[in-house]
């Protein structure tokens, strides 16, 4: 998404007067400074307010550690599931023509349009005590809501479009020709996918996986509905941050939050790197298409 190509050299008459340029730049940067930069720095200032010892203490507290463990577990289950789905969906949408294709594309984006709270709520209605499958689950003593399976389901729902979206965009741009050629040359479906499709979409897939992972680790709204906040059992890192904050343990809360902030920065850096790589692949594969899709 980021456009990293060099800014166009200003040509006389084709750009704004210097005063206007300065004013607009100042306005834009002040806005970003107040709304992005200061909040970001603030997280770390607050986290380290009582020194390094307190910071490490808050992060290594047993409840914090179990929250970190749960968040990693949820991501480890969610991301592969959504990656496999993303590949299948992108393949179906870009390589076959069928009725209802537009509908399918819209449905894939649906979780983005649904409030996270609603995402949590629908799983409560399915698997909660009074839900559709509630009595059945109760009889068998299986807990979904206020337990780990519910958290995983809610997370799968909210982080579900990322891989599919990234792949659909790139696979549409790269076209079917290369695969058709491979198929004509006698490749079977798997060979075609592994040798032709995958190298073309590799960076888009990685990019989707990065975004999906970030969302899976950071999801709050949906998880807070299904979590039940059983300490040490169903608290993910964002929920743990909330609990600490509501108990006025601000420094500890920001210390744990800073872990998520670090994940966010790593995500942004990886995204930038991956986008550059992806552009290079596209440039090499298709100079004309790369020209229009570069940004």
């Amino acid at each position, binding site marked *: 998404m980021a456009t990293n190509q060099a800014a166009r050299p200003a040509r006389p008459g084709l750009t704004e007067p210097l005063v206007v340029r300065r004013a607009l730049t100042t306005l834009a940067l002040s806005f970003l400074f107040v709304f992005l930069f200061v909040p970001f720095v603030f997280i770390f200032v607050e986290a380290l307010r009582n020194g390094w010892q307190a910071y490490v203490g808050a992060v290594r507290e047993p409840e914090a550690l179990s929250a970190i463990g749960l968040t990693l577990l949820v991501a480890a289950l969610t991301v592969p599931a959504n990656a496999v789905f993303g590949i299948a969906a992108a393949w179906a949408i870009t390589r076959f023509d069928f009725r209802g294709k537009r509908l399918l594309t819209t449905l894939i984006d649906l979780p983005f349009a649904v409030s996270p709270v609603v995402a949590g709520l629908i799983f409560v209605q399915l698997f909660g005590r009074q839900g559709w499958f509630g009595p059945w689950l109760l009889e068998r003593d299986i807990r979904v809501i206020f337990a780990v399976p519910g958290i995983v389901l809610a997370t799968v*729902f909210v982080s579900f479009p990322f891989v599919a979206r990234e792949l659909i965009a790139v696979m549409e741009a790269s076209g079917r020709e290369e695969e058709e050629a491979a198929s004509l040359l006698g490749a079977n479906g798997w060979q075609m996918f592994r040798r032709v499709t995958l190298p073309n979409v590799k960076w888009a897939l990685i990019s989707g996986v990065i975004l999906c992972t970030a969302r899976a680790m950071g999801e709050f709204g949906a998880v807070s509905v299904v979590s039940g906040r059983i300490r040490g059992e169903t608290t993910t890192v964002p929920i743990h941050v909330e609990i600490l904050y509501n108990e006025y343990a601000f420094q500890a809360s920001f210390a744990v939050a800073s872990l998520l902030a670090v994940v966010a920065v790593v*995500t942004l850096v990886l995204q930038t790197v991956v986008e550059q790589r992806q552009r290079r692949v596209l440039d090499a594969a298709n100079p004309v298409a790369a020209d229009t899709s570069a940004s």
Partner: protein
Amino acid sequence: MAFTVIYLLAIVLVPLLTLPVKSFSEGWSVFWDTIRDPRVIASYRLTLGASFVAACINGVLGIVVAWVLVRYDFPGRRIVDAMIDLPFALPTAVAGITLTSLYAPNGWFGQFLAPLGIQGVFSPLGITIALIFIGLPFVVRTLQPVIADLDVELEEVATSLGANRAQVVFRVILPYLYPAWLIGFGMAFARAIGEYGSVVFIAGNMPMKTEIASLLIITKLTQYDYAGAAAIAFVLLLLSFSLLLILNALQGWSTKRLGY
């Protein structure tokens, strides 16, 4: 193909179907009464109002940010550019506690607002601030590629025909950006309507005053009023779904009209 559809059905469609079913499980009148409850209406009004204001502010400043990032050069431009996605990457709960602490009366920003009698937290203003934060990337990111692809010849022609720079900007460039801008605006708006994590800390959650719709859903849930929660959620879903449909239509329309 079959796998795609089944996965989609299992994870998205069937769970979503529970909403209308549950909303009406106790009959039309219960649904209707829930929706018409003054507290619920106040929460919808607040959610839509704050989301709209936040989307407008992001709409105006988003154009400026996108323009500056694509057209002008300044030190640190690429880092600033990468930072735009921070609200996407930062978990909403983290954004929520950070903004609340910043705008609280003794916070970095709040200490300047308090003497002026402005309440930065536990007020509609605070909600709007949080929604500006989470909606910030949408307009910028939809406009950037369009501005980068803008045909310089268009500007050259207008200039050589005697238009001054302001005329070129307001009569050539901005109309051209309009469809993409609208999509970015709509996305920021839709996102804000459903937002929970970043708002819940800063809102203060006073019924009738600073209680947003998604919070009211959770309140109903904790009171075991499942039908009520589903009814509020169903309306919320209809709102964001119609926005999504409008967006899709707009996208199709702009593709036809402008070819991108």
